């Protein structure tokens, strides 16, 4: 049972790191990046390629840097010019980007599933209350917890964090106070993309790599963000942990219905609270 809860934490933690990037960008810009899952996918592939030479930490660093650059480019080339347009334009343009990035990954790494090995330093398992649990999964939980903690501290203490929180609470007043969102958004989008890349890299040994892996995680993280309440960090955290648990417990106890549970949970939450658990706006 404890092992199952830990497995749920692994999945929930990964979901949180991906979703929080969406929340960051939505908080600042009121837009949703449909190519966010593709950034996760790119992170997994970049990590996979670098891990062969640079080891686990090298892969993690490389994925974070490459994806941060991709994120900065995304903001400068696409999100900023489209800022004045209807948010739905950004949705459709980033959807086009999703198709291009999937095609790109297929071109570079091929269509077939790739399997990334568990890093040797984290191979093997430990006994937790008499049940064995892979070390690597514990590392994933630790990384997710570190990211969650670091991000909360950053949002709380840094100037940019203050702007992001202010903007996600009330973008109009924030702009009137003289906050120039364009200047902070490059950093915020780059950070969101880097987080997607990191979670892609650390989840690579747990999943099979394929160009379409991005859309699966995109849909799951949309559920997290909508259930949590768009733009809410705390909401996304709670939703990710809960969905990680129900997803995993579902896989164990009702395998035929497991994939449906997050969707049903989402519909239930939306009937109860149309703006999500912690959302005051959509």
């Amino acid at each position: 049972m404890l092992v199952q809860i830990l497995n749920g934490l692994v999945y929930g933690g990964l979901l949180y790191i991906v979703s929080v990037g969406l929340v960051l960008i939505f908080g600042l810009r009121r837009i949703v990046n449909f190519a966010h899952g593709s950034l996760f996918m790119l992170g997994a592939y970049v990590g996979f390629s670098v891990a062969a030479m640079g080891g686990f930490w090298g892969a993690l660093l490389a994925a974070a840097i490459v994806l941060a650059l991709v994120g900065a480019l995304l903001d400068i080339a696409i999100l900023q010019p489209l800022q004045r347009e209807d948010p739905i334009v950004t949705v459709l343009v980033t959807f086009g980007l999703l198709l291009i990035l999937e095609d790109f990954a297929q071109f570079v790494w091929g269509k077939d599933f790739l399997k990334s090995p568990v890093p040797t330093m984290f191979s093997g398992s430990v006994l937790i209350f008499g049940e064995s649990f892979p070390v690597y999964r514990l590392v994933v939980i630790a990384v997710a917890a570190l990211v969650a903690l670091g991000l909360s501290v950053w949002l709380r203490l840094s100037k940019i964090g203050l702007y992001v929180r202010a903007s996600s609470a009330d973008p109009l007043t924030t702009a009137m106070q003289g906050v120039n969102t364009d200047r902070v958004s490059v950093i915020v989008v780059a950070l969101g993309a880097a987080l997607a890349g990191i979670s892609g890299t650390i989840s690579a040994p747990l999943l099979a790599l394929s160009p379409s892996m991005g859309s699966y995680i995109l849909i799951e993280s949309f559920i997290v963000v909508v259930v949590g309440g768009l733009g809410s960090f705390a909401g996304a955290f709670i939703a990710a942990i809960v969905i990680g648990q129900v997803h995993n417990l579902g896989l164990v106890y009702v395998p035929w219905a497991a994939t449906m549970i997050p969707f049903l949970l989402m519909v239930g939450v939306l009937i109860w609270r149309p703006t999500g658990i912690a959302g005051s706006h959509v």
Partner: protein
Amino acid sequence: MTGIVTTDPIVSRAPPPRHALALASAIGAIACGALLAATIQSSLMMTLVTQAIITAILATGVGFLIRQNGVVSFGHAAFYGIACYTIALALKLGVMRVEFAILLALALPTALAFLLGLVIIRIPGVAFSMLTLAVGQAFYEFAMKARHVTGGEDGFSVSLPPAILGIPTAWFQNPHSMFVVSWSVLVLIIFGLALIAASPFGRLTVAIRENEERARFIGYRTTLPRVLVLTLSAFVTAIAGVLFTLYNTFVSPDVLHWTLSGSALIMAIIGGPRLIWGPALGAIIFFFTKDIAGDVTEHWQGIIGVILIVVMLVIPSGLGGTLAALWQRRFGHG
């Protein structure tokens, strides 16, 4: 006041000439379709065109939702696929005649859209798009997992009886005759949707699309009309699903996958969703681009992505919108 003119009983009783014109062009379009089917000999070409037309009906449903509601759905494959699976399963289990199965296949997605709409239509803008993507994919996951009923990933073939409503079933599988059927259905749908869009109800939904709050201020209930637009759009989508099943006689979870919803959406955007016939034009362009690009390169998905971005940035009204604007500049207000 200008209102006097429109409330004049003589004016309102006489059929508006625009409708007569629209009816005439609908009949003309159906005749042209039949002529086209008679001239094109190549079966391969006809197969492509027939597929394009069936998907054009799906795109028309997606586009109508954008046109009347201003919301973008990433989950219409659910309505399409449920229609497909309803016929397939009803016939597999042998519980009803094919005619009833078709009626049920139209009714189920429509009813589902209505109920779902009551929950999700209040959610505005981008959040609606995210939700439709997630909800649509839930049905795909279900079809993949419920192997004992749906056959899972492999799908199964549909055993149709030799005749449907007295029409030999073979007609629905022959690309030439099926083209005439689907083309006529498409033209009638576009004609019907044009009538609805021009009706007081259609204008109300446009008013709500433009500013829901003001529509409420002047005393309209806004939720139900928006739910009804979604319902109507799902109904059109279900028709496409029924035609697809009769034509292909095979269903697999692909008909529920979000890439189908995404493709239909791209077609609607390329063609121009502000026009009722725009998405259908977009579907035809999409299919031919895919066919031509598919011969030259494996990267047609990337090409479609580039086309989508270019259309969004350069001609947001779509190709149909651009054509209509050119036509109007050339021939004045018609």
